[in-house]
């Protein structure tokens, strides 16, 4: 047993570490191609591949329309956002001017850059914390049987069906009593609970951590915590990254909770701040808020798209499925 573990650690990871990023991408692409059945075997009519590619291209255009629009219009003045053609540039080019406005308190609504910082704080603490709790609990539910473990697991799953409003409104009422209104903890603490994250981790552990490995480590006298940190954790890194991504996106997107519990603008996350700008732009006429909304939207989505690109190779969407068959 021991030798197996040691040998595995010594031989396999080393060559992979020396592989450069380009080599890895190339290898992954080749493996993917090798796993596929050659297209010509399907006996397709001529033009089918072209037709399907065109259809995919059309949907890609549909997907990219708002993104292209927001990039183009982040360079425009308020007048041009409405009057010039939406899918092309128009003079004057005010990208940097609008961008600098994100650092100022506009009309007393609050400063965009502060909302941005808040969002990052909530996402890192809330999303990161949710990931830690989900990973621990997912492993616990997957590989230990203790009294009531099944019942507890199904209770958590049933909680998925509870509407967010049924949780958020009472949170507000309780917060009012314990002084958590306008406290960042009022936002972060509820974000720590992620039933979906826990479910995904349980699935991933069931599929990728063999019981025998844990038993072997136990026979070697390793403690439970040590087994988790040294044996289990390295095996479930892709699953952890997926849950981290989902948890961060969930906090980044959260709108209902911060909308209700924050009344001070300097605590808002991006979503609530942008919503406030949008309301003020329509109610108070021309205060030049529209270019800010466009620029703010652009700056809001860039970090998440960047995060996706970084974490892309870890993404395991299939996590959602495994335990359906379990």
């Amino acid at each position, binding site marked *: 047993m021991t030798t197996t573990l040691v040998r595995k650690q010594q031989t396999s990871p080393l060559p992979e570490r020396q592989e450069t990023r380009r080599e890895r991408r190339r290898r992954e692409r080749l493996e993917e191609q090798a796993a596929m059945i050659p297209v010509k075997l399907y006996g397709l009519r001529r033009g089918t*591949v072209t037709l399907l590619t065109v259809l995919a291209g059309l949907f890609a255009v549909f997907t*990219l329309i708002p993104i292209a629009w927001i990039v183009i219009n982040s360079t425009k003045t308020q007048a041009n956002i409405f009057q010039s053609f939406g899918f092309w540039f128009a003079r004057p080019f005010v990208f940097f001017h609008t961008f600098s406005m994100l650092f100022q308190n506009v009309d007393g609504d609050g400063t965009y850059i502060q909302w941005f910082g808040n969002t990052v704080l909530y996402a890192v603490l809330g999303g990161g914390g949710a990931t830690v709790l989900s990973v621990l609990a997912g492993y*616990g539910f997957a590989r230990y049987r203790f009294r009531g473990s099944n019942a507890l697991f199904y209770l958590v799953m049933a909680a998925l*069906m509870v*509407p967010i409003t049924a949780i958020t409104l009472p949170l507000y009422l309780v917060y009012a009593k314990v002084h958590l209104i306008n406290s960042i903890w009022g936002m972060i603490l509820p974000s720590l609970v992620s039933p979906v994250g826990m479910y995904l981790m349980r699935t991933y552990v069931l599929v990728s951590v063999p019981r025998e490995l844990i038993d072997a480590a136990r026979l070697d006298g390793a403690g439970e915590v040590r087994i988790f940190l040294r044996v289990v954790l390295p095996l479930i890194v892709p699953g952890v990254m997926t849950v981290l991504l989902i948890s961060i996106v969930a906090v980044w997107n959260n709108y209902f909770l911060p909308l209700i519990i924050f009344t001070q603008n300097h605590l808002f996350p991006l979503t609530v701040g*942008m919503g406030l700008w949008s309301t003020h732009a329509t109610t108070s006429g021309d205060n030049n808020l529209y270019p800010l909304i466009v620029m703010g939207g652009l700056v809001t989505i860039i970090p998440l798209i960047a995060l996706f690109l970084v974490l*892309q190779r870890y993404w395991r969407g299939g996590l959602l499925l495994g335990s359906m068959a379990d």
Partner: protein
Amino acid sequence: MSDTAVRAPRQRPPRQAAARAHLRHSGWARRRDRRGAGFVVPFLAAFVLFLIVPLGYAIYSSGYTTRIIGGTTFTGLSNYTQTLTSGLFWNGVIRVVIFGAIQITIMLAIAFFFASIFDLGVVKLGRTFRAIFFIPFGVPIVVAALMWGFLLEPQYGPMTRLANAAGFSNVNFFSPGLMLPTIILIVIWEWTGYNMVILYTALKSVPRDLIEAAILDGAPLWKIILKVKLPMVRPAVVMLVFLNVIGASQLFVEPLILNNYQSGVITNYYTPTYFIFRTAIDNGQYNLAAAMAVILGLVVVLISVAALIFRRRRGEFR
């Protein structure tokens, strides 16, 4: 021994199974299992504090009514009867059911179509398309609604202009008749890629032999997709339907934001969640709103359980 580490647990040789059973029944194993509960405790503590307790408080407070004169009094089920007999509440529920039925069907059809052609590799640039389709998942719903609000705005929106130029005169995507289809379009934009990626991963796990056998039988492409692949990923589809139904029942941000672009179309009771928000925040009727939230939750549970029983009866779902 060396390959047991990688072998699936189910194919365990009998001797090992006996050893494991012995382990499990010894006092050592029981202690270990109790320590295993330690992994679960932090999550469960947060779960109880921030999910179960608020939910309990919602149910508790839904039994009371607060009036300006007279304070808070226990009124039993009156908030529930008020909600259940409220035509406005059910108006919103019905709208969301229609919304979900159309949106989820179209979205899953598109997602499955692209997932299967990417999976079979009968498209050029499949990797690039997959990455592009996934982008909207990273766009916060508030921002997505704002962008589409600009694009479809009745006077200046570029899409409205294009529609007018294409010969449709006086198109208003936010008119009472088109508002719901517009929201469906926005939600499809937001979630298709996410569903597609999940279906794609499920399709990848279908054994290759099955497809090769179908090809040898001379099955055409559409038959391979619908008759061989689809039945194999049915559990994934069921899971996605379940998650999307929950999502649809909570439709809220899109109406809230679009209300800024066109006033008067999004009524206060447009969707149940929107109605709950307006009741609680604008009218300060927290107790009534709590009762509505509980009923909305029960409606979702009923739909889910009914779907589960239906599928179980057809023997498709364990």
